[in-house]
């Protein structure tokens, strides 16, 4: 029982990461129909921004050395900047483009970011120590939970509440929701297209930055491909949850986190390294029965 509860908290913590990443992706998809394959590389960028550019194996922290109330906004600002830049340089000119074109474009953007990181920081993974004090465990009854996991879950709840408040109670939020549902009509009513889109990229960047910080604290490693599995799982989360639905993205994220942790915990020893394959197989099984996801929206259904 204790073991199960322990795993449950693991699942919530991992699921939170995936949910945050999925939210960042789902937001851009909802408003722009953009599947941003570069999102994982936004996350990598946020993590690498903590250290001084070098090819060394041990990372020298730069921004990573500042107190958390400075590091957080600094990394957030940098990733937001990257997101806005990628919109300005690439995605802005592809507003009317087809879905495959957008997909390849975002893949290209991500690939370039990855290789820039590779060029500047080298291919070897680096060890980094960020907020490792949070690895200390908190004792709750009979459970031993690393502080970091509680922080992760906590931050995720705060961010989701914040996003929800923003979308439902502020004028910008209402405009974003309107734009997500019917972009053209929103513009006819005076909603400023580029502003709303910029806002979406900014929020997406903010979420990516949070994921990068939490992920780096948990794993203690930097690698130029670190964002790829996160991006993939986040996308799978949105697909399971139902593309076009933010709530679906969150639910999908927690679902994928749950399945992943359970597989890790309960698969027999020899099969454990194939955990990701199992997660994927389970996802496929879900999709066979519900191809439009757990919470389908009208976003993808073509009206005849």
């Amino acid at each position, binding site marked *: 029982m204790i073991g199960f509860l322990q795993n449950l908290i693991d699942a919530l913590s991992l699921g939170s990461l995936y949910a945050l990443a999925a939210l960042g992706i789902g937001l851009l998809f909802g408003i722009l129909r953009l*599947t941003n*394959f570069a999102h994982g590389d936004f996350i990598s960028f946020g993590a690498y921004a903590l250290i001084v550019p070098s090819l060394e194996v041990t990372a020298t922290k730069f921004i990573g050395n500042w107190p958390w109330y400075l590091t957080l906004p600094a990394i957030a600002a940098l990733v937001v900047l990257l997101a806005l830049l990628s919109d300005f340089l*690439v995605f802005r*000119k*592809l507003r009317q*483009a*087809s*879905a*495959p*074109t957008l*997909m*390849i*474009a975002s*893949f*290209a*953007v991500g*690939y*370039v970011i*990855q*290789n*820039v990181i*590779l*060029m500047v920081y080298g291919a070897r993974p680096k060890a980094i120590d960020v907020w490792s004090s949070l690895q200390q465990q908190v004792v709750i009854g009979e459970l031993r939970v690393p502080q970091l996991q509680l922080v992760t879950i906590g931050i995720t709840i705060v961010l989701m509440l914040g996003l929800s408040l923003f979308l439902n109670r502020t004028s910008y939020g209402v405009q974003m929701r309107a734009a997500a549902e019917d972009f053209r009509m929103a513009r006819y009513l005076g909603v400023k297209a580029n502003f709303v889109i910029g806002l979406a990229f900014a929020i997406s960047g903010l979420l990516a930055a949070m994921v990068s910080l939490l992920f780096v604290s948990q794993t203690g490693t930097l690698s130029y*491909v670190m964002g*790829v*599995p996160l991006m*993939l799982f986040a*996308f*799978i989360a*949105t*697909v399971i949850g139902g*593309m076009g639905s933010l709530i679906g993205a969150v639910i999908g994220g927690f679902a994928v986190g749950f399945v992943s942790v359970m597989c890790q915990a309960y698969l027999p020893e020899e099969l454990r*390294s*194939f955990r*990701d*394959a199992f997660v*994927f197989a389970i*996802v*496929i099984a879900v*999709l*066979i029965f519900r*191809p*439009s*996801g757990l919470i389908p929206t009208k976003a*993808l259904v*073509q009206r*005849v």
Partner: protein
Amino acid sequence: MNSPLVMRQIREWWPVLSLAAIVTLVTAIAIWMGGDEIKVTLTEMLIRMTVVIATYLFIGNSGILSFGHIGFMCIGAYAAGWATCNPAWKQLMLTGLPAFLQENEYPFLLAVGGGGLLAAIVALIFGAAVIRLSGIAASIATFAFLAIVNSVYSNWDSVTAGTSSIIGIPQVVGPWEALAFALVSMVVAYVFQQSRYGLMLKASRDDEVAAKASAIDIVKVRLIAFVASAFLVGVGGALYGHFLGVLTVDIFYMGLTFVTLSMLVVGGIGSLFGAVSGVLIVTLIVQVLRAFEAGFKIGGATVALPQGSQEIGLGVIMALILLFRPSGLTKSREVPWPFTTRDARPTAAEQAQPAE
């Protein structure tokens, strides 16, 4: 030779005949002019051409983007490698292989066929599961497929030697062999796109609702294309293994996916001409970038681009093409018939081209 029937046949097959001629010519000239290094580059290019054409067969006709084809290349490569590499080595290193593979050494062509077959079987299973997804979700699923193949193959040590390599694969693939397979895949792709299935698939690409209303079984048609495409990609992978002589899992991941996709995008994702020309052009671009990375001696100093410029350069070029010529340099059209004829009616091939 000038009989109208023969001329009409030539015109009907012109898109693929012209490409076959061009590629054969390029191959012949390169072999005649260059040394061993050129042969290596050439062989690799022709193997990639097989893979890119096979990928185009699915993506170009169905309109669904797939990021997973390199996963099939991996499957095909390893399957063929298992068949032809030294049994003694296999029994020592790949203890998980089934007996019929472990104890025997099979001829090259059989191995290639086996590679394609395994890829096709996996494609059938995977495809059947995800083909019902919307285009975007399906594309995401193919991306995940690539990652899964990479993960499984990296970890299944007893069968793939995990993160180390399979060695000792007979290197029987040179430029001429690769050319032969590239030509075959050209013909297969062309025959497919002119066939009933190709037509139905293109209809579903252009207007899914109308296609369904015309009693086209979209699921079946997409699956057929997906499996056929995977077979050919698997064949390409088998060729690749028998060209390198050594196999590791990490060569079949992001880098190769990006390069092959960029070849399709630069050339034109919707036509065979696009696929072939994309391979030729991007290979050239990569060679140029590689030369810049190696550097030139200017007055005693070496001027060179930093490592990694190749990939970034290719990424930038791909982005530029998407921004300014999204249908590729060929505008996704086939090779145009160069002569004017008295017969003004377009052939079936010309009629099948996209309207813009």
